[in-house]
């Protein structure tokens, strides 16, 4: 017999994952609104936030820093680094350009360096030298060449590019962090709180508070700051926004930065509860997209709400039906939403049919 405290328990566990889906969904929405692209790499931002957070916190603690300084500092470092990754991604692979920029050359140098080290086992200075020399050579060869393929990338092209970036980020994470799951100690006391027969981890409460705060701040940013309003204008009609003097490229860069930011926050906060490994991003992106669609693609507030709803459904499904199949259950909910109400709970059906891709 399933008791009401069992159900409450399932709901509590669902809230934890739901908060991640909420943030991923919010990230999807922000990028989609400004570019019409579905950023398949969204889940990797969560993964990076978690893995970098563990690494930073571990390094700081080993250096002697006490936990209540180490953790917030690690938070800032990890979230900041992931945000930079998001911005680099936009600069290298998404932003239209007709020539190779300094970011492309930087990426080229990094790839050559990596290949030298991994394939031919060169030492660090040799690999660096080879990378620098080859990159300078490439620059001299290509500096006056126009690149047509990235001048006006189609949405289809960009979506596949984000798919490629998500695989790439996953591969780099596997290379750097290995395949093991990483673990962080809870930020607060580990004693569970007892509510009506169900146990609630204080960390879960912290996660929900932080994430709700982040979502609210993002909402306020969009609604009340000039930059936020500029981003909304850009999302609404890019050409008119440009005519109004808004730098659309900066706005798009900012949307990627924000998406990476919220993803990383979620990743960092939940790692103590759910652990984190290099491979999590894919499933998170899928379910986060489900949240975004369920909330009405383009509706940030809807995405956050839908994320929690999806998480609770998953928690209940895992507890009441089968925990082995819980992923399949949430995916079927996602498919159900896609099939029967693609406009989601808060969106419009017409808007679901007419955009670039």
């Amino acid at each position, binding site marked *: 017999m399933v008791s009401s405290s069992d159900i409450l328990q399932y709901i509590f566990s669902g809230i934890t994952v739901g908060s991640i889906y909420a943030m991923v969904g919010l990230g999807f929405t922000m990028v989609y609104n400004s570019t019409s692209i579905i950023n398949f790499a969204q889940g990797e931002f969560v993964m990076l936030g978690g893995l970098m957070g563990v690494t930073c916190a571990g390094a700081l603690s080993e250096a002697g820093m006490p936990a209540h300084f180490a953790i917030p500092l690690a938070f800032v470092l990890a979230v900041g680094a992931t945000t930079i990754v998001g911005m680099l991604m936009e600069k290298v692979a998404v932003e239209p350009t007709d020539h190779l920029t300094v970011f492309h050359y930087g990426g080229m140098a990094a790839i050559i360096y990596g290949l030298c080290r991994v394939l031919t086992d060169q030492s660090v200075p040799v690999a660096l030298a080879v990378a620098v020399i080859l990159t300078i050579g490439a620059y001299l060869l290509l500096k006056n060449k126009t690149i047509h393929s990235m001048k006006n990338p189609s*949405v289809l092209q960009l979506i596949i590019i984000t*798919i490629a970036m998500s695989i790439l980020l996953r*591969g780099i994470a596997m290379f750097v962090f290995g395949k093991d799951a990483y673990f962080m100690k809870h930020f607060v006391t580990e004693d569970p709180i007892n509510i009506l027969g169900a146990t609630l981890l204080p960390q879960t409460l912290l996660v929900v508070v932080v994430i709700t705060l982040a979502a609210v701040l993002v909402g306020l940013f969009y609604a009340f700051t000039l930059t936020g309003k500029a981003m909304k204008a850009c999302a609404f009609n890019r050409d008119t926004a440009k005519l109004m003097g808004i730098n659309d490229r900066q706005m798009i860069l900012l949307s990627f930065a924000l998406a990476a930011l919220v993803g990383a926050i979620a990743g960092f906060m939940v790692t103590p509860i759910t652990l984190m490994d290099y491979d999590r991003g894919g499933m998170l992106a*899928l379910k986060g997209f489900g949240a975004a669609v369920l909330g009405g693609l383009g509706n940030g507030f809807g995405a956050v709400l839908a994320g929690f709803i999806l998480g609770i459904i998953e928690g209940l499904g895992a507890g009441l039906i*089968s925990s082995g*199949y819980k992923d399949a259950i949430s995916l079927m909910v996602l*498919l159900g939403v*896609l099939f029967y109400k*693609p406009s989601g709970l808060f969106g419009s059906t017409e808007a*679901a049919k007419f955009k670039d891709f």
Partner: protein
Amino acid sequence: MGRGNFITLVIFGILVAVFPWIVTNPYYLRVINFAGIFGIICIGLSLLLGYAGQISIGQAGFFAIGAYTSGILTVHFGYPVWAGILVGIALNILVAIVVGIPTLKLRGHYLAMATLGIGEIIHIVAQADTEDFTDLIQAIGEKLGYNSDKLYSALEPYSALTGGPSGLPGIPPLGIGPWEVTTPTEWFYAIWVVAFIFMVLSLNLIHSRIGRALRAIHGNEEAARAMGVNTPRLKVGVFVLSAVMASVAGSLYAHYVSFISPGTFSIHESILVLVMVAVGGMMNVWGALVGAVIMSALPESLRFFHDYDILMYGLVLLLIMMFMPDGIVGQIQKVFKFSNSEKAG
């Protein structure tokens, strides 16, 4: 089908016919055979991606259904090989219709995510111990009030169908009656003749009214609808066709390797097929085969990548999509400016 394509087809046919006489090394043949199997999946995906402009990241799911259906029916139920293949095709048509009809009404990224989801679900089901699955059904049935003993005995024979994570061994080789396909050379012909047939089919499709309608859809969907093109039905049709091809490839694969496990049917493979089509050139069906051969031969010669193949796929896909979005065949077409080039705008 256009003079250029016809000539290429003839050359391709001759190549297929004489290849095993030139290359007899069984290892190379094995590589080319796998390339062919993936190539068949790629032909379907190329039609979907290049002509209907829809992304599917779930072809491995259709591949899996084809493989497991052939495997289960021949191993557990003693069906003949051709029956397994046909049932696999039928099943995949059903799944493609169920997934395609609602999502293809909308924009492309919905299909991308839906196919990702379906592929994952199929992977989870294939990987889960069927015993857990029958336990699950039993548990649900009991809750609904059915007799648990009767349920158990009814479900018992199905409790080891897919073999779960350890896979399904003992699949018989391809064959009809006394005649079986066993040697690498025989398999080469079995696989590449099928690929040839699908190429002929696809090229005819592209050069027909349907093909022109598809290109119209890819160019501008609203305009195509305004011109009377039945857009939803065509998109679903191409999607189903890609599923059928993946199904046949899956059945061939199952009979070729005689042992299938869920690890071969994950999103990894769906991405690989996407990379193959992108590398070869998604606007041209030949690109599918070119990409499949390249991406199958390359890892073999770059053995030292091991685990990092996922990183290489991501990098290759990224570089191709950024700097050579028309793929290798597309670049060659641009350079030589073939008069029959299939530029869908």
